[in-house]
């Protein structure tokens, strides 16, 4: 997100959404490997897919992953980035300033060492380890009289976006399907689906199935740390979803991923097992130009800006020239990027065959 934040509101020619808005407002840009670009609204998504295509969504609920804490008398913001165990998390520390300040302009947090106690409301984060390369990246253990999830849900606030005027509440950052709290930022592509949108897709015979993917932070404001994102992330694929993907393959139908988190999960499962199978795992799959796609034929995503890791993953689907043409059209037409913004449906080349 840092490229967009550098020029709040207009980067790569694309604006950012300043207010929360419902999913149905999003426009949709359809990018195939060849042929003209197509535009429509997100509710038209089904018109660009075929009966029997499978859309895989991320049903992770979003943690309120930002915490105001005090290290002695110094204020430190803790942003959770990944869950290690029931009570332990990887996190990034932020210093002076709040969400209205772009992350790369925030002051550095104080140095912490193992044993340091970051006190929040109703819980304390105890530093267990500090990353050797990045002192802002830490491992934390939660101490609380309540179960950890309960304490975190009570004390935390959603991560805020500098490009927005609205302060996001917990209900603003949940998707239609949100259930297990695995995600530290909102699965923004899944958020493009409203109940009306889901009904429209099902009416056209598109099969919509979930997996759970623990998407982490996408920006920390520290270029060196950002270069290490995304971290390895956990995923869990239910039986019914693995079966739907298998059946789509067998019938020559498409598997469409709602967002980069779903792509990482499906490609991660394929990489680990030779096909997409039911069960949990951890994915380290990274999309980039030249990285082959084995499990996914298309991706629904938000609009992203060159330089962001989301954009890099797009290059696994399409050549740079196609992406540039799409970005240029979106910018010309005044579309908006990032959360609560407009959307893109990208198709990779020919359908996969075994």
């Amino acid at each position: 997100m840092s490229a967009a934040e550098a020029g709040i509101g207009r980067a790569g020619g694309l604006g950012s959404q300043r207010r929360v808005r419902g999913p149905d407002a999003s426009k949709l840009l359809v990018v195939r490997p060849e042929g003209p670009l197509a535009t429509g609204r997100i509710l038209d998504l089904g018109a660009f897919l075929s009966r029997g295509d499978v859309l895989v969504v991320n049903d992770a609920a979003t943690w309120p992953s930002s915490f105001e804490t005090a290290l002695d008398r110094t204020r430190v913001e803790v942003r959770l980035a990944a869950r290690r165990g029931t009570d332990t998390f990887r996190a990034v520390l932020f210093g002076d300033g709040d969400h209205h300040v772009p992350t790369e302009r925030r002051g550095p947090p104080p140095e912490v060492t193992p044993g340091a106690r970051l006190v929040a409301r109703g819980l304390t984060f105890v530093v267990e380890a500090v990353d050797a390369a990045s002192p802002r990246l830490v491992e934390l253990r939660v101490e609380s009289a309540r179960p950890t999830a309960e304490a975190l849900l009570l004390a935390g606030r959603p991560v805020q976006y500098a490009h927005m005027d609205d302060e996001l509440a917990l209900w603003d950052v949940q998707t239609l399907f949100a259930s297990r709290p695995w995600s530290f930022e909102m699965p923004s592509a899944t958020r493009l689906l409203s109940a009306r949108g889901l009904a429209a897709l099902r009416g056209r015979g598109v099969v919509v199935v979930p997996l759970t993917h623990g998407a982490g932070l996408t920006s920390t404001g520290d270029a060196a740390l950002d270069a290490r994102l995304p971290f390895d992330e956990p995923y869990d694929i239910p039986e019914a979803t693995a079966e739907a993907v298998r059946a789509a393959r067998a019938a020559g139908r498409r598997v469409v991923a709602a967002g980069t988190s779903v792509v990482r999960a499906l490609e991660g499962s394929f990489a680990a097992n030779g096909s997409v199978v039911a069960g949990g795992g951890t994915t380290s799959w990274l999309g980039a130009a030249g990285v082959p796609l084995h499990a996914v034929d298309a991706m629904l995503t938000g609009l992203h800006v060159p330089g962001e890791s989301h954009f890099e993953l797009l290059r696994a689907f399409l050549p740079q020239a196609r992406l540039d043409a799409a970005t240029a059209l979106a910018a010309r037409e005044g579309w908006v990027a990032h959360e609560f913004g407009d959307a893109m449906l990208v198709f990779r080349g020919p359908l996969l065959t075994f």
Partner: protein
Amino acid sequence: MNHLPQTALVTGVSRGLGRALFVELARRGVAVLGTGRDGAALAETRALAPASAKAHVVVADVADKTTPHRLAALAADLFGPVDLVVNNAATLGPVPLPPLADAACEDLEAALLVNAIAPFRIAKAALGGMLARGRGTLVHVTSDAAVSAYPGWGVYGASKAALDQLARVWTEELRDVGVRVLAVDPGEMDTKMHAEAVPDADRATLAQPDDVARRIVDWLARGDVATGSRLVVGGAEVPS
């Protein structure tokens, strides 16, 4: 055959029917997250359920807009995605029950918030996992006061009628996605709420919440209750 869900979210478990439902579900092996505003009473509720049960209580006010998503996420984290919601928490409104001409509009707003809007929010928050998996059950506790016109019961009755109507539309909208919507009218029970509403009732004629809860859970455990059904405890079931 036991068709009970894996994970339930029940509101208003500090006492009365909510407490009895929490305990009965826990006894039957359903993982249950219960909420209420009274921490001490909640602890007593938890103590009535088997110690080894997957049963947890949390202080929460359903009137708070942040509550529903916190509850759904907590239940999912502790036990798994919610597949049964029992919207039981309710307010009677002002007591002694006033004629509408004496009821403040703020009393009506407060009753609508707790008795209709909060259940609506909670249903929405829990619905996600149900939509993703294509199964789940939404249950709300309602009352004869939502159907018949009893003087003094206008505020409470109107709020329960709103809840009933929301449920009727939910029933149709969710018919094709595998989510059942059910209503329960528990009848008159020997509870604090009843005592506040009808102080001079003959308590011996009132049903015990434990018995009513068992009846409700028996109903939910059946495999053949169609969406849109309304259980009137002590009366005949109204199928959809």
